[in-house]
C-alpha cells in the first residue's frame, strides 16, 4: 500500500497484534471467579507508574472518581492518559502530578464550565506534555481496532489538518477507491477504569444509557477495573444479558463504590455536583489552592465514604438524585451564568 503521509505524533499504546494475542492468552483468565476487592487493592495491583491509562464514560459522565482519587492517594507518577474527551479525571490527575503525558482528543476544558486552570498551567509550563493529537472519533476507533485485534483501522478523518500532522496516523491510498484514506493505529491502554450501575462479583458489568466508547475501550485495554454502584447477584445479570456491556473475562477487578462517580453524573441515578466541580475549578487556579483541594478531599480522608461525607453527605447526594430525576432544578453558580 502506498503511504502518502505520516503523522509525527508519538505512537501511544500500540502493540503488534500477535504479541497482544499472546499476552491475552497468558494473562487474561477465562475462569468465572470472584474478583471483588477494595479500590485501594485494585489500584495497588493494576495501576503502575508509567502506565498508559484511560477512563470510561465521557467528560463529566460516569467517571470512576473513586479510582482517580485512589491513584492520587497512592502517588502514582508518570502516567500517560488517553485524552479521549477526558475532562475532570485528567484535570485532577494532572493537578496532582500523576499524569505527565497526554494524547489529546479533548482535554484541558470542562465544556460549558470553561477551561481547566490546572491542566492548562501544566501544559503551558511544560510539566505535562502533549505527545500526540487526535479526534474523538479517531480515539475510539483506535480502541475499536485494538478490540478487533487489528493493527489499524481506516477512517476518513484528520486528513488535511495539523491534527493529523501531530497524530500517529498514516494516510495511504485506498486500493479499492483509489482515494486517500487515514489509517488509525490500534491503542491498547495498560489499564482502563469504568464506573457502572451494576456488576456481579465476576465482573459482568451492565451500563444504562449511552455507552460512549466503553464497549470498545473495555476490549482494547489489557487490564480492566470496574467500580460499581452495587454488586448484584449473577442472577440479575443472567435475567437481562442484553444489558451486559463488559463481560467478566475482560475484567480484572470489581469494587463496590456507591456514588463512585461523584462529582460527575451517573445517568438515571445522580446529577453532576456543580458546586463541587466549581470548587475544584476555583481552587485549581493556583498551586496552593490545588494542594488545598487534595489535602481536603484526598489526603485528608480515609476513603471514598469519608469523602462523600465531606462533600455534603446524604443530604447532598439526595439532592443530586432529585436533580437527575428532574424533580428539582439544578444549582447554577453565579459566575457560570452568561451575561
Amino acid at each position, binding site marked *: 500500500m502506498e503511504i502518502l503521509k505520516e503523522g509525527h505524533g508519538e505512537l501511544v499504546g500500540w502493540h503488534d497484534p500477535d504479541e497482544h494475542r499472546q499476552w491475552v492468552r497468558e494473562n487474561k483468565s477465562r475462569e468465572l471467579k470472584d474478583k471483588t476487592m477494595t479500590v485501594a487493592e485494585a489500584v495497588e495491583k493494576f495501576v503502575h507508574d508509567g502506565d498508559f491509562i484511560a477512563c470510561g464514560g465521557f467528560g463529566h459522565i460516569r467517571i470512576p472518581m473513586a479510582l482517580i482519587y485512589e491513584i492520587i492517594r497512592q502517588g502514582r507518577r508518570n502516567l500517560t492518559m488517553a*485524552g479521549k*474527551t477526558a475532562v475532570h479525571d485528567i484535570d485532577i490527575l494532572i493537578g496532582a502530578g500523576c499524569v505527565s503525558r497526554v494524547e489529546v*482528543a479533548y482535554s484541558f476544558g470542562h465544556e460549558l464550565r470553561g477551561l481547566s486552570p490546572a491542566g492548562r498551567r501544566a501544559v*503551558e509550563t511544560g510539566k505535562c506534555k502533549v505527545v500526540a493529537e487526535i479526534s474523538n472519533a479517531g480515539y475510539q476507533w483506535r480502541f475499536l481496532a485494538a478490540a478487533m485485534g487489528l493493527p489499524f483501522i481506516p477512517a476518513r478523518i484528520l486528513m488535511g*489538518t495539523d491534527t493529523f500532522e501531530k497524530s500517529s496516523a498514516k494516510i495511504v491510498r485506498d486500493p479499492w477507491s483509489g482515494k486517500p484514506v*487515514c489509517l488509525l493505529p490500534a491503542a491498547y491502554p495498560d489499564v482502563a477504569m469504568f464506573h457502572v450501575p451494576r456488576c456481579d462479583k465476576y465482573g459482568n458489568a451492565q451500563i444504562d444509557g*449511552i455507552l460512549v466508547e466503553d464497549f470498545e475501550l473495555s476490549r482494547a485495554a489489557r487490564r480492566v477495573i470496574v467500580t460499581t454502584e452495587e454488586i448484584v447477584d449473577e442472577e440479575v445479570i443472567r435475567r437481562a444479558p442484553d444489558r451486559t456491556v463488559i463481560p467478566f473475562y475482560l475484567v480484572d477487578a470489581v469494587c463496590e463504590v456507591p456514588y463512585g462517580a461523584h462529582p460527575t453524573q451517573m445517568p438515571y441515578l445522580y446529577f453532576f455536583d456543580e458546586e463541587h466541580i466549581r470548587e475544584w475549578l476555583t481552587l485549581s487556579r493556583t498551586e496552593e489552592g490545588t494542594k488545598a483541594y487534595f489535602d481536603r478531599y484526598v489526603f485528608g480522608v480515609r476513603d471514598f465514604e469519608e469523602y462523600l461525607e465531606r462533600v455534603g453527605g446524604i443530604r447532598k447526594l439526595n439532592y443530586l438524585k432529585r436533580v437527575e430525576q*428532574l424533580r428539582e432544578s439544578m444549582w447554577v453558580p453565579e459566575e457560570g451564568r452568561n451575561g
Partner: protein
Amino acid sequence: MAEARYTPTELLACVAARLLEDGKSVFVGTGLPMIAAMLAQRTHAPNLLIIFEAGGIGPQVPVLPISVGDSRTFYRAVSASSMHDVMSALQSGYVDYGFLGAAAIDPYGNINTTVFGDWERPEVRLPGSGGANDIGSLCWRTIIMMRQDRRRFLSRLPFITTPGYLTGPGAREAAGLPEGTGPYRVITQLGVYGFDEATRRLMLISRHPGVTIEEIQANSEFEIIIPADVPESAPPTPEEQRILREIDPTGMVIGG
C-alpha cells in the same frame, strides 16, 4: 438606533436555528448550538433529528444539557447508543448539519481549537479537536459559531485543528475528505457568512442589525468578500424569545 429588545446571544441562537431544516439531521454540542437546535425543533423544524457525539439519538430534551454526554442528551431518545455508532453515521452520510465552535478561523473556514504558539511549549493550550475534526471532515454542512475580532479571524492559523476548505476549491477532495462536504455558514456577533463558490473564501451573507460593513471588515485580519447588497439579519421575534426563555430558564447560555 432604538434600543434592541433582545440580547446578542438570543439573536445568534435565532439566526442559527433558522438555518436548520425540518426532516434533516444535526450533530450538536453543548451551549448555543444545542439551544439553536431546540429552538428550531419548537418552531419550523419539529422533525429535526438531533444527534449527540457521545451516543444520544433523537432525544426530547427536557432541559438544557450541560454536557454532550449528559443524560438529558438521551432523555426520551429513540436510541441511547455509542460514539462508534453516531460517528459511523456521520462517516456514512446520515448527518446533514454539524455545529462547531472555534478559537480562530482563516479565510477558507479552517479552524483552530488546539494551540496558540509553539505546539510543544504553547503560549495558550486549548482543549483540542474533540469531535470537531470528525464533524468538520464528515458532515454534509458545517455551521461555525464564534466570536469575531482581529485575533480570531486570521489570515493564517497557527494550527489547523479542523478542516474547512483547506487551501481552496478541490483541496478537501484531494486530501481524501468526503466529496460535497465543508463549512456552510459562519455565525458571529457581527454577521452571517458563507463561502464563495469560485474561491471557497469567506463571504458576507447578512449583517446583524446596526452593524456596518466597516465593522465587519475591521474585525478581520483578512479581506472578507462583501457582495453588493447585503441584507440585515432578521431580529428575534417575540415568539422565538419566549421559547428561548423556556429552553434556558436560568439564562445559563443566553444570558439573564
